[in-house]
């Protein structure tokens, strides 16, 4: 079977339309909080909560993003289990036990795909209704398995922890029993996946500090990408909050979470400046974002 599968060759049927971060960032509109009378809104915060006017459609879009993310996470874990020979972790090999963990993760992700597809149906979303951003699988294409652990298990699955926590809370507030239950169940798996990544990254690089540093640097790059221009972060302007407690359970140190929070803030400010410039260049007069 073929090894090292590029993102362009992912198998999808005609329902799915793929996009990437470059295309996404080229869209210089901004999703600022709704402008309605203060008495009718919680407009001081952009957090995705059921009382927002656009909440149902925003939740549908996010759920679809979760589903396509799960498909790519399945593909990424499966690739890592297959792409590298079993060995001691040097010379492009990975420990056999790491392969087993990746196989287990692929099994988890396959269930998550099924759950997410059924949740999407429950929420009135058709498969492929929204664009599929392939940035997640891109992080799983490195030639170095340790970089994949950093990019996929720690950065990508870390984002999944944040998103699932937000969606679980959304389901709880809306009184949606299926959404809350399913997100809680998947969240437990994601914490495990991040912990696996953290543990294996330490083990495999125990005698190779340069490789570990390179992996952590790659993780920072991916984490900033996965902030999606401040979509995720501690700021009230970010719809998805940083799930600090669950990240702690998954093996992130306080310092690591703080670094991610700062990157989210930077990404948000950079995005706001980019949008402002683009809209002014287009001759429009954007409201302060």
């Amino acid at each position: 079977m073929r090894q090292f599968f590029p993102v362009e060759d992912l198998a999808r049927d005609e329902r799915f339309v793929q996009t990437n971060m470059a295309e996404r960032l080229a869209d210089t509109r901004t999703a600022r909080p709704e402008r309605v009378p203060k008495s009718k809104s919680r407009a001081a915060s952009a957090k995705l909560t059921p009382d927002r006017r656009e909440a149902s459609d925003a939740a549908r879009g996010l759920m679809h993003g979760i589903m396509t993310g799960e498909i790519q996470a399945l593909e990424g874990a499966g690739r890592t289990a297959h792409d590298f020979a079993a060995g001691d972790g040097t010379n492009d090999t990975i420990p056999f036990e790491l392969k087993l963990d990746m196989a287990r993760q692929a099994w988890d992700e396959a269930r998550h795909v099924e759950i997410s597809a059924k949740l999407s149906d429950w929420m009135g979303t058709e498969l492929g209704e929204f664009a599929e951003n392939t940035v997640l699988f891109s992080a799983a294409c490195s030639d170095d398995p340790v970089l994949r652990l950093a990019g996929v298990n720690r950065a990508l699955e870390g984002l999944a922890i944040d998103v699932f926590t937000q969606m679980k809370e959304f389901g709880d507030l809306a009184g949606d029993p299926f959404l809350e239950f399913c997100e809680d169940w998947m969240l437990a798996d994601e914490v495990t996946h991040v912990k696996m990544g953290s543990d294996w990254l330490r083990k495999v690089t125990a005698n190779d500090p340069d490789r570990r540093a390179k992996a952590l640097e790659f993780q920072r790059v991916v984490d900033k990408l996965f902030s999606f221009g401040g979509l995720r972060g501690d700021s009230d302007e970010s719809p998805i909050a940083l799930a600090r407690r669950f990240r702690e359970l998954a093996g992130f140190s306080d310092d690591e979470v703080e670094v991610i929070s700062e990157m989210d803030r930077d990404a948000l400010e950079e995005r706001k400046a980019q949008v402002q410039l683009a809209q002014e260049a287009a001759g429009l007069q954007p409201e302060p974002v």
Partner: protein
Amino acid sequence: MSEAVSTSTEASAVADFESGKVTVSPGDFRLVKFDGQQICDVVAEMAELVGIPNPIRIVVDETTPLARLLSELDGTSSDAQITIRAESGALEDTRRPTVFDHDRTATSIGRMLLRARDRMRPDFADVEPDIELSVEALAAWDAYSAGRLAQLGRPINQQRWLYNYRNRFGFSDDTDAAFERLWVADDIGWPDVMNP
């Protein structure tokens, strides 16, 4: 087809686009791949479908990908102008952001035209302006409007509107029964929309 000076809020004056009784503002889009004629065509198609002869003005906010819609009416006669304010996400292809989508636009505009038509009825006279409506009122009105579009033959995903209705009124059998009554209704007043 003619062009007139825009009254939209953009910094540079961009001519509106006019076709028949429909005006689109701005007439020239910079951040999205929309075309005034395409929008006019869909609006005219939907106005004919729901039976509205009034002049219609569409004001698109292309600076946001959100999809909020507002419908305003400057009177209740057949020549009263209907103004629909749409954030660009309400008219775009969700698979291809910034690209215009006929079906999504038809559903968005159709709902707003039905809302405007409702406001011409005496039993909707006391309803607050769209911008002041609660999320519950909007969900109920959207369910009633989307249901009527489905009755008129438009392809509508009923589950999407049921999910929105449940988010506002609770996840229960009573809520689902109320939604079903709204979905099949076609000639009810505001009190029945809120308490179907």
